[in-house]
Every structure is written in C-alpha cells, then in structure tokens.
C-alpha cells in the first residue's frame, strides 16, 4: 500500500471498521512509514480531543413544550373512518364526473333497429298529414267503407284472367 491508499483507508482502520485484509496492509505500512504512523497517532489523539466537548442536556422545559406541540396537532376524528383516502376520493369524484358528462352527451341513433326507424318515419308522415285533421275529409273516408269490395275487385280479376288467356293463345 502507498501513502495515498493508506490515507483513504486510515479512518476506517482507526475506527476499527476496516476489513482484516486492509487492516493487515495498513499495519504493515504504518510500521514502515514514519510519516503515516505519526499522522495516525495524531488522528487518534484528535478523537480524544473531540471527546472533550461536553454533551449538553436539553432544557428542562423541552419535553413539556414538545408534548404541548404534539397535543396541538389535529387528532383523527371518529368520522374519519368514513372518509376514504384522498387519492381514492379523488378517483371516485373523477369517475362520477366522467359518468355525468357521458350521460349528457347527445344520443347516437345509429344503434336503432331498421324497423324502429321505419315506424318512426311513418309516425312522422302521419303526424304531418294535415288532412287527417279535416273532418270533411275524414267523413268521406267513412263513405268509402260503404263501397262493395267484391264489385270493385271483380273487373280486375276478369281483366287478369283475360290477359292470361291471351298470353296462352
């Protein structure tokens, strides 16, 4: 070990925290190098000198003041059990806000079935027929019921049979 290496490991050596391999190498170096040996001795004495600084005790009122400050700290209340953790509360509030926002979005009609759509259109057409609000027109519709259905249908049937015969001949 060189003097610089010893310098780096001298404090762990002196406080007995160096590993045994380092300790052995340092001891060998200190035995051979008077400068490092003198330095190590001075550091040992320095630590004794530093121990001369007396320990100060906290003032008598220290504990009382500390307890008073602790007592002033807000206590947990009984209803705190019901209050969720702040992060959870925030998440729930966000979730609720998003749900409300989504529910207020305009409805998309693309999902309606075709039949429901056609019914809807027919209803709109009927609703817009002003004629249905005219009593005279409606009463004439009633008169149509008196027209015999068979008579009106027979000429058409005869015509159909005639045309079939013509096609066959």
């Amino acid at each position, binding site marked *: 070990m060189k003097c610089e290496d010893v*310098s*780096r*490991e*001298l*404090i*762990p050596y002196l*406080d007995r*925290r160096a590993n045994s391999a380092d300790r052995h190498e340092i001891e060998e170096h200190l035995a051979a190098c008077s400068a490092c040996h003198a*330095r190590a001795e*001075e*550091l040992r*004495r*320095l*630590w004794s*000198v*530093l121990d*001369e*600084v*007396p*320990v*100060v*005790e*906290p*003032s008598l009122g*220290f*504990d009382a*003041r*500390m*307890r008073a*400050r*602790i007592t002033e*700290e807000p206590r*947990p209340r009984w209803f705190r059990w019901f209050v969720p953790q702040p992060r959870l509360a925030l998440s729930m509030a966000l979730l609720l806000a998003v749900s409300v926002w989504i529910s207020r979005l305009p409805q998309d009609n693309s999902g309606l079935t075709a039949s429901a759509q056609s019914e809807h259109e027919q209803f709109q057409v009927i609703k817009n027929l002003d004629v249905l609000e005219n009593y005279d027109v409606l009463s004439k519709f009633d008169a149509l019921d008196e027209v015999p259905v068979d008579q009106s249908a027979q000429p058409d049937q005869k015509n159909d049979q005639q045309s079939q015969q013509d096609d066959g001949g």
Partner: protein
Amino acid sequence: MTRSDVQLMLDVKAGDDSSFDLLLQKYRTPLVNFLYRMVRDRATAEDLAQEVFLRVYRARKQYSPSAKFTTWLFRIATNLALNSVRDNRHRQMDVSLDAAPADEDAAPLQLPAREMRIDEHMIERDRADFIRGVVSSLPEKQRVAVLLHKYEEMDYGEIAKILDCSESALKSLLFRAYETLRVQLAPFVSPAARRAGKEARHEM
C-alpha cells in the same frame, strides 16, 4: 422486552402516543447535541430538535420501515440544520451589506499568527468551546459527516444515506475533515506543539 425504534414508530403509527414519548426520550439529547454542534446556538438547536420530532410525528401515518429510524431522524435534522445555517448566513450578509462602509483610510486588518489566535482563544474561551468552534468551521458536509461519525457513531452506510453520497466518497470526505481538524487543533494533538504549549504556560 425492549422494542426497536422501528417497532416504536409502527406503534406510533397505530395511534400509541406513549411510544412517541419513548422515542423522544431516547433521541432528544443526541439530536439537540447534533443540532447544537451544527448551528452553535442552544436555543436554535432546541427549536430545530422540536421541529424534527414534530415532523416525525406528523409523518407517522405514512411511515414505512424502509430504512433505519435514526437515518430518517438525522436526515430530517441535517436538512433543517443546513437550512438554518444558510438562513443565518444570509441574514449576516444582509446585515453586513446594510452596515456603514468601513473607513478606507483605516489601517488594514492585521490577522494574528495561528499560534497567537489559539493562545488568545484559550485565554478568552474554554478549551471545549474552542474545539466546538473549530468543528463548526468545517464545510457543511464535512461537519455533518464528522458529527455523525464521531459523536453518533453511525456506520458509513447510514451516514452516506443521510448525506446522499457513496461510501467511498464519504471516506474521502471524512479523511479531509479529520485532516483539517488535525491541523487546526495541532496544539492539542501534535506532540511537539503540546510540548511547546506546556513550556509557554510554564514560563508564564
């Protein structure tokens, strides 16, 4: 059975304030001494120690035993002490900037030789105060490292965590700090200087 610091803190977390009292009694003296050596003012040191304990108490609900209790405690103390030292330094700078300008014609300040200053200090103040003053004149990080290493006897890993540095960086830091102290306190630690000091006192 004695409960560990971590167990005591977990009990505080569970709502047992008497466990906090035990932690307070165990650490108030080391904490006040550490802070006193940092800020060099007893009243400030006690105020800061109270603040450290209050922060620990306030953080009890979030406490998780991921590190040693003392690492956490002294990390809070170190941060508060360094902030206090810096604030104090700023206040002193403000005062000196506001002070009346010095007389330019006055004789330049004569700094006495180190031996003289040490003798004067030994006369004016007691030895322990002088040693404390030399320690507190170390750069901040070196001072914290020495106080935690020498007086709190913390291991290197714990001090490195408090100072947020590697263990090898801490070893270099400690060596530089102790070398500075060895030179500054040479009259107390150097055999030649001690002999000279004794002879000087004998002649007086």
